[in-house]
């Protein structure tokens, strides 16, 4: 784990990168990092996130600034700009059920070749997907998702990068921390090693490459 300032951290991300971004409608999103993506005009991004939040919040700001070419998300309903750019064919939108999305990311991070989920079987999202019948019930094969970068948000970190999240700001963050080549965690405070009990740690520091402090 290395401490970086936000400018250095975002400079690592090239245009066109695949980036996972934690948060649920902006709650638990790495806002300092997102603002810097916008400042540095990192563009042509493929964003993997739960949703596109609101036009002025979280991932939503990246959309409004037209920096994404594709999003893989479960929901875009709270950000009219996403649907607008989709209709204009500026932005490609891949919709994935929320529980499937998080399992795909987990599979990518934890070395599974895929998972079988009952969610979506028989609906339009099953088109072209492999269906397998297990003990009389149909499941859909869903493949792993990985990213070049994950930018996530935690409440606290120690100097080893062990992370603790807060309440519903946890959501996708711990799962995304496992599934990207480079993981940048934004945290509100950085504590001395040994001040977070091993049983309290939500994400072990080995998953975290860089820490950035929230502004």
């Amino acid at each position: 784990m290395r401490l970086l300032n936000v400018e250095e951290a975002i400079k690592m991300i090239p245009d066109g990168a695949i980036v996972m971004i934690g948060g649920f409608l902006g709650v638990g999103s790495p806002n300092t990092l997102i603002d810097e993506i916008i400042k540095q005009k990192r563009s042509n991004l493929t964003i993997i996130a739960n949703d596109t939040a609101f036009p002025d919040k979280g991932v939503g700001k990246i959309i409004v600034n037209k920096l994404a070419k594709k999003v893989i998300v479960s929901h875009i309903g709270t950000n009219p700009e996403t649907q607008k750019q989709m209709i204009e064919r500026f932005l490609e939108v891949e919709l994935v059920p929320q529980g499937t999305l998080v399992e795909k990311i987990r599979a990518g991070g934890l070395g599974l070749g895929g998972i079988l989920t009952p969610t979506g079987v028989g609906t339009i999202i099953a088109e072209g997907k492999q269906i397998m019948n297990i003990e009389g019930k149909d499941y859909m094969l869903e493949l792993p998702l990985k990213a070049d970068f994950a930018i996530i948000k935690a409440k606290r970190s120690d100097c080893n990068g062990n992370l603790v999240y807060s309440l519903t700001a946890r959501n996708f963050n711990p799962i995304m921390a496992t599934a990207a080549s480079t993981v940048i965690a934004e945290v509100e405070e950085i504590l001395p090693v040994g001040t977070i009990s091993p049983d309290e740690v939500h994400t072990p520091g080995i998953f975290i490459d860089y820490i950035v402090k929230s502004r």
Partner: protein
Amino acid sequence: MMDPKFIIAKRVAKELKNGQLVNLGIGIPTLVVDYIPKDIKVLFQSENGIIGMSPLPEEGLEHPDLTNAGANYVGAIPGAACFDSALSFGIIRGGHLDLTVLGGLQVDEEGHLANWMVPGKMIPGMGGAMDLVTGAKRVIVAMTHTTKGEPKIVKRCTLPLTSIRRVDLIVTEMAVIEPSKEGLILKEISPEVTLEDVLKSTEASLIISKDLKVMEV
């Protein structure tokens, strides 16, 4: 007449049973919390990662890290537990959620729900709805009976389905309907409307229950 959404929420609240783990969708389902009978204690799960969600105790106590699945500030009861999205949807998909109440765009004669997109018009996405309908032990659809005069209870959904799982109950401001293998069973009618009104506002065929009741709200 009371606003339809409050009638629906009030009637749905009667379906909650003591000790249940319940997930309420956005919109009308969220209102259910205000009508839960005093002798019933349930736990609320929210798919963004909490069991033990409660309404915000008072203004000024908002916490930026504590919201419901609609990003509204909420509170938490003593004994609440938080978790990541993988466990949250594991709870839902794994059959550990007793009840979900969701809004709907259409429900058809097979009890199939459509509630996540109107092709070419409005594509909010399924969010957690597909997992909820597929995984919850019991699914109640809480929606107005019609929209702009058009029936929402139809022969066959024209909108993309949320799941091929048959929902367990439909509650509207006019009626309570139970989907079954045989079709949609009309169980209760609002005291404000006639059977004819209900049939006229419903595209799907309804099987009228031998035990048809007046909807208590």
